[in-house]
């Protein structure tokens, strides 16, 4: 099992560093360019949600990103100590509604679920929130 860790502050300027971290490690694990692009976007969306919702743009929260992979799966875990949330109350994307309201919401979560094989949430209020993004590795 390979494990890599990155800790960054909850600032949008760090998103590019997070994307680079995912890109280099996913390439090392042998994924195709398209698969890597999908994982980069899913992780960007997860971290953007942490910055926006868990930390409410407060710039000094910690975001811990951990990658673990073996021959069967590549798992990216994103953990924060911000406000907890219930993923079940996030609505599915509704483009007509966004048009009326001039804003979007829930797109990030929809993208994560679409681009990854599995998305799991765990939230312990007052302690941590953790989202796990899993991509299966197909046998060669």
């Amino acid at each position, binding site marked *: 099992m390979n494990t890599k860790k990155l800790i960054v502050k909850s600032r949008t300027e760090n998103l*590019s560093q997070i994307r680079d971290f995912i890109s280099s490690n996913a390439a090392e694990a042998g994924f195709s360019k398209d698969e890597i692009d999908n994982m980069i976007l899913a992780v960007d969306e997860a971290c953007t949600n942490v910055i926006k919702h868990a930390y409410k743009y407060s710039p000094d929260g910690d975001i811990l990103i951990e990658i673990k992979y073996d021959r069967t799966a590549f798992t990216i875990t994103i953990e924060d100590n911000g406000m907890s949330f219930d993923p079940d109350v996030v609505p599915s994307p509704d483009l007509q509604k966004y048009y009326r309201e001039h804003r979007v919401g829930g797109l990030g979560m929809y993208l994560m679920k679409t681009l990854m094989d599995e998305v799991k949430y765990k939230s312990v209020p007052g302690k941590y929130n953790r989202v796990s993004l899993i991509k299966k590795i197909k046998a060669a």
Partner: protein
Amino acid sequence: MAEFNTTLKEQGDISIIKLKGYLDAHTAPVLENKFNELISNNRYKIVVDFQDLAYISSAGLGVFMAYIEKVRENQGDIKLASMSDKVFNIFDLLGFPLLYEIFKTEEEAIKKFSE
């Protein structure tokens, strides 16, 4: 830090915004400012050229949603052009082709305004 910038070109009453680099939650305000500038100058016929855009996240997609109704209320439109397959796939995944006209080239998008 992610690099992103825009260049603005005017062709008659049509404004063409060319995007370059990475459009994410950090850089989306740059594009918002550009739309605000156009709208405050009553320029509502807008073409967005994606040719040099390497990356977009939902924060970037949200910018287009924020301004589209205001622009259309003023007899204008935001037409999108020259997307890479990678960027188009994200728009497509979220159903944006139902709400926006997406063209292969900037020229086709400009031409559509004069029809």
